[in-house]
């Protein structure tokens, strides 16, 4: 299903700039950045059974790297992006070493605590990060000589990256490694007895998830041309997690759908109600209590029901 679905979906998304105004095109770009982030988070939370509340740390870290390397050191976009991804991935490896000393709730608390380190650093190390004022002046690169200043151009750039991300994560998840990852989520004790090195499987996944969150972070800072400590906050991680859960963790499409909804909610509704945080809280509680499996599995179940293949 995904093999034909993906090109069609990408094709449809690519047509949006011809029909919509800049506001919606920009919204679309934001949705795609959120989608990459949610897909990366889903590797851990959905496929790995390791819920983390500190994933935004990697998004923010790579964004800060790019901002600092380009505006303070004057490095080229390509070099900055590369160094940023490498740095973020190394950080993910280190954080994974610490966090994976536990699992379940212990893991959740440690990831939360670790991401707070980076948040605190972004906030207090004013000489480097400019603290609460954030870092401005980030410019967009010119990939292969094309400008991505306009809303449409950036949108297509983001779409390209998102498509690659989706495809690569899909390959990861359907691979033999992906099967063992899902196994460790469902029966980690059994998997160990069957010969799987559960810790190593989780650590590799953690690093890969950190990598893609870093990619999302680079797009993020290019889009906004600005980075602020709040992007590393618990709220930011929670928004990503909400997208994953609402859409349906453990599926590929779920997080994409969920993050599209959360982004829409955040941007659209925010212009009417000022209380995004409170709304986020209510939506969180609602989804967890009412629809714990998320939207996509719910819809799939309905579809199977109507098709009559449900036993």
């Amino acid at each position, binding site marked *: 299903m995904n093999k034909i679905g993906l090109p069609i979906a990408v094709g449809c998304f690519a047509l949006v700039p011809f029909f919509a105004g800049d506001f919606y095109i920009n919204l679309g770009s934001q949705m795609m950045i959120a989608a990459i982030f949610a897909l990366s988070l889903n590797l851990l939370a959905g496929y790995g059974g390791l819920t983390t509340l500190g994933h935004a740390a990697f998004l923010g870290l790579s964004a800060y790297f790019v901002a600092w390397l380009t505006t303070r050191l004057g490095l080229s976009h390509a070099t900055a992006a590369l160094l940023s991804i490498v740095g973020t991935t190394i950080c993910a490896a280190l954080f994974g070493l610490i966090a994976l000393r536990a699992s379940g709730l212990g893991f959740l608390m440690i990831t939360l605590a670790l991401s707070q380190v980076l948040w605190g650093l972004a906030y207090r190390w004013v000489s480097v990060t400019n603290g609460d004022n954030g870092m401005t002046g980030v410019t967009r690169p010119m990939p292969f000589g094309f400008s991505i200043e306009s809303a449409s151009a950036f949108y297509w750039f983001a779409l390209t990256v998102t498509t690659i991300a989706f495809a690569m994560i899909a*390959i990861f998840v359907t691979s033999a490694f992906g099967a063992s990852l899902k196994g460790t989520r469902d*029966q980690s004790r059994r998997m160990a007895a*069957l010969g799987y090195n559960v810790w190593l499987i989780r650590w590799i996944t953690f690093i890969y998830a950190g990598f893609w969150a870093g990619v999302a972070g680079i797009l993020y800072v290019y889009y906004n041309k600005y980075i602020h400590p709040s992007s590393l906050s618990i709220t930011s991680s929670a928004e990503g997690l909400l997208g994953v859960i609402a859409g349906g963790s453990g599926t590929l499409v779920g997080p994409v759908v969920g993050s599209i909804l959360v982004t829409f909610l955040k941007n659209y509704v925010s212009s009417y109600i000022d209380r995004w945080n409170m709304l986020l809280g209510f939506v969180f509680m609602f989804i967890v209590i009412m629809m714990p499996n998320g939207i996509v599995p719910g819809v799939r179940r309905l579809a199977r029901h109507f098709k009559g293949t449900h036993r």
Partner: protein
Amino acid sequence: MTIQDGSYALELIRLNKAFAGLPVTQDVSMIVRPGERRLLLGPNGAGKTTLFNQITGEIQPKSGQIKLFGRDITKLKPHQRAHLGLSRTYQIITLFPQDTLEHNVALGLLGLMPSRWDLLRPMSRDILVEARRVLGLVGLGDLADWPISDIAYGEKRRVEIAMALAQKPKVLLLDEPLAGLSAAERSTIKKLIAEIPREVSVVMIEHDMDTALDLAETITLLHYGKVIIDGTRDAVIADERAREVYLGH
């Protein structure tokens, strides 16, 4: 299958384990020879499953040694022991409920293969084919595409065993393989266990005396974590102490 220096398949040397001061394994020693069928008996709480958990490495004994074909595995992690030929089934069904029977057994096969680290390609066709073959051996070939959640309890027990056997283990630990089964299902599983090839040494925990005794060649009787009697089936059955242990409850 070669065994270096004629060593025992599994050897437990003076294992000790306590949970919060309560001793659950007390100075337990046991020898399983290659091809043997050993039954681990004992009333509830005797520490049988805890002993299994120490053999597989999920729990670390406080003192003592565990050797697999002469090799000291006491400090090895569970997944490392699996690669040395140790396999087990569980008292409570620990299958993957959302996945098909085929996938379950395939995961069992994949665990010992280098391709489990393949980040790009899905499980190879060969693994799936072999999984179906193993399912056929236990009489579940027709249900290969069904999700675990949809099959009967007795069939799940068979998948448990299939998964363990698929790995072609050298030492197989069966933790109450007959638990909760009807008489008909019990005889099916019994037949399965009886047909396990001689290359595999089997240690079985079981409560159902009638069935279990038929399958056992040697018996170790455990009580309060201690080995009470240890010997051939007939010797143990005849022993006074066996009756004491069971009647005393």
